[in-house]
């Protein structure tokens, strides 16, 4: 499968990565060479092979329903680009 620059633009949009036209062109070539590498997978017949998401196939342990966290808002918001009145601020969102 080979990508077009429309693919790259669509994917960049989904990933919220702003790309200039020049970057799109450059990226396109690189992504296509990576996809050529990746496409080597297709030579293996994987019919009826169950996908493996985790190498060890363990099962999840569940946590008891207890409140263990305390308010650390001030500490956490020290690292925020913009916060006021306890809220994180972003440019106005139109719904």
């Amino acid at each position, binding site marked *: 499968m080979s990508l077009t620059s429309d693919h790259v633009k669509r994917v960049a949009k989904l990933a919220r990565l702003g790309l200039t036209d020049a970057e799109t062109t450059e990226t396109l070539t690189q992504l296509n060479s990576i996809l050529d590498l990746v496409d080597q997978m297709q030579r293996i017949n994987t019919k009826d092979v169950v996908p493996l998401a985790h190498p060890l196939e363990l099962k999840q342990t569940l*946590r*008891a*329903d207890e409140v263990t966290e305390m308010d650390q808002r001030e500490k956490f918001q020290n690292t925020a680009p913009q916060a*006021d009145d306890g*809220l994180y601020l*972003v440019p106005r*969102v139109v719904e």
Partner: protein
Amino acid sequence: MYEAVIGLEVHVQLSTNSKIFSGSSTDFGAEPNSQASLIDLGMPGVLPVPNAKAFEMAVKFGLAIDAEIGQKSIFDRKNYFYPDLPKGYQISQFEKPIVGPGRVLISLEDGTKKTINVTRAHLEEDAGKSIHDAFDGMTGVDLNRAGTPLLEIVSEPELRSAKEAVAYLKVIHSIVRYLDISDGNMAEGSMRCDCNVSIRPEGSATLGTRTEIKNVNSFRFVEKAINTEINRQIDILEDGGRVIQETRLYDPDREETRSMRSKEEANDYRYFPDPDLLPVVLDDSFIETCRVNLPELPEARKARYISEYGITDYDAGVLVADRDVADYFAEVANTSGEGKLAANWVMGSILAELNQTGGSITNFSVTARQLSHLIGRIKDNTLNSKTAKTVFEALLAGEGEVDAIIEFKGLVQVTDTGAIEVIVDEVIAENPDQVANYRAASEDKKSKMLGFFVGQVMKKSQGKANPQAVNQILSSKLSG
């Protein structure tokens, strides 16, 4: 003519103490971001650990709707960007939900019943809240709600009207309240509803293009939003237009739905199994324990009330819809020993009052014990229906206990026939014309006309006279 095809996605916030993937509190109404931990904030390097209680609650719901339980469920990531979604993905369940296909029974106004199939119910984390009006040109983000466990219950598109949709939503509400897995408070957002609505010519088997109305937050709005949307779609088709598949928002002030610009872009959520989490495998004993601990559900309780308290199917249906109301009624009925009277009072006076004030029965000013006491006083003839009403109103106003009110207001019923005879004589003397008319009237008219005299007597006795005694004495004196 058009037929509406409606499916609901109901998001129920589960009433766990802590969040689904972190140990933060889920309490409503805290200071912004004071209940947002490292994990809820999606800080670099943090990892989720699921809450066992959320699974227990989801399984109970599944059992209550007779659904298949996913003994191996898998968390997936739903990827999209939004300021109140801290990680850029929501942890949800896509291919292997905890609850598989199930069904609920709804009762329609004409008394017919309809089974609505539930496609699935899955666990996921709630997003935070965006606050748009507090800052100039900026949106504030509060992540206290982020990570609150949600059970998303998806129905098949089998609902055919707004009324059916509301009936379905009420059943879901009733079930989650009975199971005590959510407070079901729609005003606080503990239960929210997305409505998928399309229309098609009646008799057509193909589905029309659907729109999704997001986040409708009351039963009333669900009905209005769906009807508004159905009408909008009919108008479009009648004008020869086409319905566009999109997400819309219901504006209750303008009674219209409008397109949500922020959600306009076609989404590609790129679901994939969350590599930070492993498959959740529930063994039979876990599920059996949930089954054993399942409380009595609305349908079962309704049947029991009909047989235990001798009330009608309709009354039982109204009384059991809300678990707290049902409990209240049962307490009144059991302590007073008067099922029918209890049903009349709860439905007639209490539900009417709650409807008007929008209050909740759990903190209602008349306790079940007080109402039961009041009914006891009707039973022992201390009160008649009129004075009982007065006592009830005094209870509502918090004026004290039943007997104290009766005493203070001097409401003890007059059953002494001598005292009643005196009043009857007075009334006869004061209304000679009416008496003449009465005596001249035919027998079947007489019983109607008697009401006037009874009213006069009751008025003079300030409502305290025993109505049966009044009737008897009046009939004999008037005929004499």
